[in-house]
C-alpha cells in the first residue's frame, strides 16, 4: 500500500528521487528530488524554458490553495454556489477533525446526509488527502449522486457504466454491480482514499454478499450513510461498526456480554453511547419536524362523454380478448395494459399506440380489423372531457400551474389545446437537453402560466414558485406520484400546495385514485414513509404496477375487478398502518432500538 503523498520509484543514475532525513523521533522529512533532475536536464539541453509570468502565477495559485492549518474547514471557501446548514458543517468538521474520517452518518431523513458526505469528500480532496474515491449507492441513486457532487460540490464524479470507468478518480457505482465480476476484481484491487456507502443499513446482515464485499474493500477514510442504523437488532449496529472500526465495541461475545440483554434490548446504554460517539453522528429534526406547508388534495370526478366511454369500453374489451387468447400470459400483455391506461388520458395517446400496433400486426391477422375499428371510434370523438375540465380549473385559479401527464401524445395535445385558447403553455420532458429544460423553466417562471410535464424525476426541477398541480392522469407507480408532488411541495414552498386529480368515473382510473389517495394515503404521508410502505408491499408480491395489471386482466367483469381492487386496497392499508404505527409520529423517523439522541444535534428547519 502506498501513501498517496509519497511517490515511489527511484531512478538509478542520479541517486534516489526521494531522500529521507530525520526530523523528530516520530517523523522523517522526505524530500522529493524529481524537480532537480528535470532542472538539470533542461540546463544540459539548454531548455526549453518556461515563462516568467506563468512561473509567478503558478506560485500565486499555490499560495492561494495552501492549507494553512490542520483544523479549518477549507471546503467552504470553494463552494460559493450554496450554503450548507450549520448542523451539516459541524458534522463535517467533526468527522474530519475528531473522527479521523471514519464515521457513520445517521441523520434522520431529510437533514442532508448527502450534503454532509459531500462536504467531507470535498474537504479531503481540497486538502489533497483523498484522490481515489468510491461512492457505493443503490442503483436508482447513482445519477442523483453524480449530479449532486458535480453541481453542488464541483467534484468531477463519474457514474460507473463500463469497466474502464473504474479508472476515474471519483466513481459512483451501485454496490450490486461493483460486487460482480469483472468489476469486483478491479474494485478490490484498488486502494481507495475514501469510500462512501449510502443506504448502509442494507449492509447490516453479515452473511450477505454485499456485506462481505464491503468488508473486503481497501480504504483509508470511510463514510456509511443510513437513517436507520439499528432498526431491528443490536447486531446490525455491531456489524456496521465492524466495517468501519473493527473492535470499537469489542469482540462479538464481548459486545453481547456488555451491551445486549436481548436482540432489541440494550444495557449499559451510557457506555454504549460513549463508544458510539466516536464513530457515529445522528442529527434529528426538531420537535416540529420539517415545517412543510400543507397539501390540499382534491379529486375531480368526471363523466366521460358517450363517445369517450365507447372508446374506453372498446379498448377494455380488446385488451381482455387478447389476454384470454394468450392463455393468461402476463408478460406479453403489459403493452396492452398501457393501452388501457392511455385511454384514460387522451384519445391522442391511445391513437398513437393503436396505429403502431396496427403496423406491427401481420396483414392477414384477424386482429387488424379490430384495431381499425377502435381507430374509427377515436375519429368519432370530438372533445376531450378532461382537457376541458383542466382548462376550467386553470382559468379559475388564475395562477401558475403544472399539469402532469404520463404520455407524450397527451402533452402535445394539451399544448395545442391551450394554445388554441391563447393560453401560454410550455412543455417539459425527459428527452430535452439541459439547455432546453432550463429555457422551458425560465419561460414558465416568466410569462407562461402553464407547464405541461411528462417527467417529474428530472434533474433538480425546483418549482417552489408554483403551488398548483393537476394530475391529468396518474402513474400506477406511487413513487412517481410522490416525485411529481415533490417538485412543488418542498423546502422553500411558502404556500399550501393544491393538488387536483382528474379522475374519470367508471374507469380503472377511479380505482387508482382511490388506492393512492384513500388506501396508501399517499398525499399526506411524511417523507420516507412511502419508501417503507412500498418496500414492504413489494416484498410480498411484486410492484403495485404489476399487481394492478394482473388484476385488470384477470378480472372477469367490473364487479369482480372492484372486489379484487378493494382486497388489494385493504392489504395496502394494513401495511401502511403497520409502518406508521412503527414510527414515532413526532420524530418522523423509524424507531431505533438504542436511543442515539446524544450523538448529534436537534435541527429546526423552516422553509
Amino acid at each position, binding site marked *: 500500500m502506498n501513501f498517496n503523498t509519497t511517490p515511489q520509484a527511484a531512478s538509478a543514475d542520479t541517486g534516489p528521487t526521494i531522500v529521507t532525513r530525520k526530523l523528530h523521533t516520530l517523523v*522523517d522529512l522526505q524530500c522529493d528530488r524529481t*524537480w532537480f533532475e528535470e532542472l538539470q536536464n533542461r540546463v544540459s539541453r539548454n531548455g526549453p*524554458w518556461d515563462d516568467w509570468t506563468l512561473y509567478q502565477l503558478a506560485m*500565486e*495559485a499555490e499560495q492561494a490553495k495552501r492549507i494553512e492549518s490542520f483544523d479549518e474547514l477549507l471546503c467552504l471557501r*470553494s463552494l*460559493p454556489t450554496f450554503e450548507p446548514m450549520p448542523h451539516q458543517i459541524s458534522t463535517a468538521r467533526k468527522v474530519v477533525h475528531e473522527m479521523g474520517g471514519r464515521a457513520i452518518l445517521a441523520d434522520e431523513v431529510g437533514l442532508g446526509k448527502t450534503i454532509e458526505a459531500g462536504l467531507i469528500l470535498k474537504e479531503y480532496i481540497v486538502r489533497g488527502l483523498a484522490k481515489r474515491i468510491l461512492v457505493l449507492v443503490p442503483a436508482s441513486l447513482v445519477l442523483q449522486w453524480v449530479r449532486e457532487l458535480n453541481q453542488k460540490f464541483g467534484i468531477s464524479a463519474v457514474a460507473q457504466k463500463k469497466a474502464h470507468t473504474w479508472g476515474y478518480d471519483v466513481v459512483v457505482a451501485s454496490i450490486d454491480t461493483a460486487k460482480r465480476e469483472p468489476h469486483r476484481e478491479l474494485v478490490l484491487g484498488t486502494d481507495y482514499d475514501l469510500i462512501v456507502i449510502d443506504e448502509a443499513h442494507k449492509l447490516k446482515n453479515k452473511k450477505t454478499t454485499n456485506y462481505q464485499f464491503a468488508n473486503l474493500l481497501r480504504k*483509508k477514510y470511510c463514510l456509511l450513510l443510513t437513517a436507520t442504523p439499528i432498526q431491528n437488532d443490536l447486531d446490525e449496529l455491531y456489524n456496521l461498526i465492524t466495517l468501519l472500526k473493527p473492535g470499537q465495541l*469489542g469482540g462479538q461475545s464481548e459486545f453481547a456480554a456488555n451491551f445486549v440483554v436481548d436482540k432489541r434490548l440494550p444495557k449499559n446504554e451510557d457506555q454504549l453511547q460513549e463508544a458510539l460517539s466516536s464513530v457515529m453522528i445522528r442529527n434529528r429534526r426538531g420537535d416540529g419536524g420539517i415545517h412543510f406547508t400543507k397539501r390540499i388534495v382534491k379529486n375531480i370526478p368526471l363523466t366521460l362523454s358517450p363517445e369517450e366511454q365507447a372508446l374506453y369500453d372498446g379498448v377494455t374489451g380488446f385488451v381482455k380478448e387478447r389476454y384470454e387468447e394468450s392463455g393468461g400470459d402476463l408478460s406479453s400483455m403489459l403493452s396492452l395494459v398501457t393501452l388501457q391506461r392511455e385511454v384514460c388520458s387522451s384519445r391522442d395517446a391511445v391513437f398513437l399506440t393503436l396505429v403502431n400496433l396496427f403496423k406491427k400486426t401481420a396483414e392477414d391477422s384477424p386482429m387488424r380489423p379490430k384495431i381499425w375499428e377502435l381507430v374509427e371510434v377515436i375519429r368519432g370523438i370530438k372533445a376531450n372531457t378532461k382537457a376541458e375540465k383542466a382548462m376550467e380549473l386553470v382559468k379559475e385559479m388564475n395562477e401558475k400551474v403544472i399539469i402532469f401527464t404520463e404520455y407524450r401524445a397527451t402533452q402535445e395535445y394539451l399544448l395545442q389545446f391551450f394554445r388554441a385558447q391563447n393560453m401560454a403553455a410550455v412543455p417539459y420532458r425527459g428527452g430535452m437537453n439541459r439547455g432546453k429544460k432550463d429555457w422551458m423553466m425560465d*419561460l414558465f417562471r416568466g410569462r407562461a402560466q402553464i407547464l405541461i410535464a411528462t417527467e417529474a424525476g428530472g434533474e433538480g426541477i425546483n418549482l417552489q414558485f408554483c403551488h398548483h398541480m393537476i394530475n391529468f392522469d396518474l402513474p400506477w407507480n406511487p413513487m412517481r406520484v410522490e416525485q411529481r408532488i415533490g417538485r412543488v411541495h418542498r423546502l422553500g414552498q411558502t404556500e399550501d400546495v393544491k393538488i387536483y386529480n382528474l379522475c374519470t368515473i367508471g374507469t380503472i382510473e377511479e380505482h387508482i385514485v382511490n388506492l393512492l389517495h384513500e388506501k396508501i394515503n399517499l398525499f399526506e404521508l411524511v417523507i420516507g414513509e412511502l419508501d417503507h410502505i412500498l418496500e414492504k408491499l413489494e416484498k410480498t408480491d411484486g410492484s403495485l404496477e404489476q399487481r394492478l395489471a394482473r388484476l385488470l386482466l384477470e378480472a372477469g367483469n367490473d364487479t369482480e375487478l372492484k372486489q379484487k381492487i378493494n382486497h388489494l386496497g385493504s392489504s395496502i392499508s394494513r401495511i401502511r398502518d403497520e409502518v406508521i404505527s412503527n414510527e414515532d409520529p413526532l420524530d418522523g423517523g423509524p424507531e431505533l432500538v438504542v436511543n442515539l439522541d446524544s450523538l448529534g444535534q436537534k435541527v429546526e428547519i423552516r422553509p
Partner: protein
Amino acid sequence: MNEKQVHKFVNRYLEATECSILEKSPAHFTVKLSPFADRELTNRPYYWSFVDRVGAEPETMTFLFVTDKQKYDAVEEIPVPPEADSTATDKDSAANAALGRSLGFVHGSLAAPARVPREDLYFGARKLEQIFDAAKAKGSYVYLFQEPDKRSHNPFSSTPYTAWLGVNMRVEFASDRKREEIHCFGVSLATGQCVEHFLDRLLMHKLTPRLPANIHITKNGISFNKALGIVEQALERKLRSYDYSWAEGATERLAEELERISEYYELLIKNATEESRPVIEEQFTQRQSEIRWQYEPRVTASAINCGIFHLEGIE
C-alpha cells in the same frame, strides 16, 4: 482568492499567453484564446492532434469568463416585469416566437452568433482550477537574467552577475489531517550562500530570458548537487525547530487503533477454524496497513517550481 484577485490573475494569464481579449469589464472577459491557451484549457486533445497532423489553421475557442458573477449578472439582467403589458414589444414577440417553436425542433441558428460558452471563475471553480494547472504546467522551469539598471549603464564596463538556484518548496505535514507551508529558497552558485524568501527578492527586479549586453557571469563556485544539498539542509534545519505535538497525537491515535484491531482480530484468529484462519489473518494485515496509511505522521517536501536566476552583483 476574492473576485478581484481572481480577475487580476486571469487577466495576467490571458495576457501572458497572448489571448485576444475581445471585451472586458471589472467583472468579466470575453476572450478568444490563443492556440497556446486553447491547448491547455479546452480539453480538445483530438482536435489539436488533428490540427498538428494536418497542419490546418487552428480555430481557437472563445469564452465568456465571468470573474464576478453577482456584478456581471446585475448589469446583464435587463429587468422584465413579469406582468408585461400586452402591447407587443419586441421582446414579447420574441418570447411568443419561442413559445411557438417550443413544440417543434427549430434550432435558432439563423440569427444567433457562434456560441460563446460562459464559465464562472471563482475560487474552487473547475475552470479556474484548470487555469491554475495550466499556469503551473507552463511555469515550472525558468532560466532568467536580471535586466541591468539603465542609469548606471556604461557601455565600456561589464557588470558582474551571479547565478542562483531558486526553488519554491511545498512542505506537507500530514497524518489523517494535513497542513502545508511554502518556502522559497535561493542558493548562490558562486558562494553557496542560501537565502529564504528568495521569490520576494526576484520580484523586486525585472527579469528577462535574454542575456543582457555588457554583463559577465561569475564562475560557479559550487556544483548543482551541492546547491541541492544546501537547500535541503536549510529546510531540514528550519523544520527541526518546529512543534511536533501533532505527530505525537497522530502516533498515539495510530497506536490506539492498532491495539483495538489487534484485540479484535487476535480473538477472532484464535477461535477460527483451520481453513478460515488465513483469510482472517490476511484481513487483519490489511486493516493494519489501512490504519497506518490513515494515521502515520509524515512530512514531505516537493518543488512547486524552480529555476536558474542570474542577478546583478557577487554574493
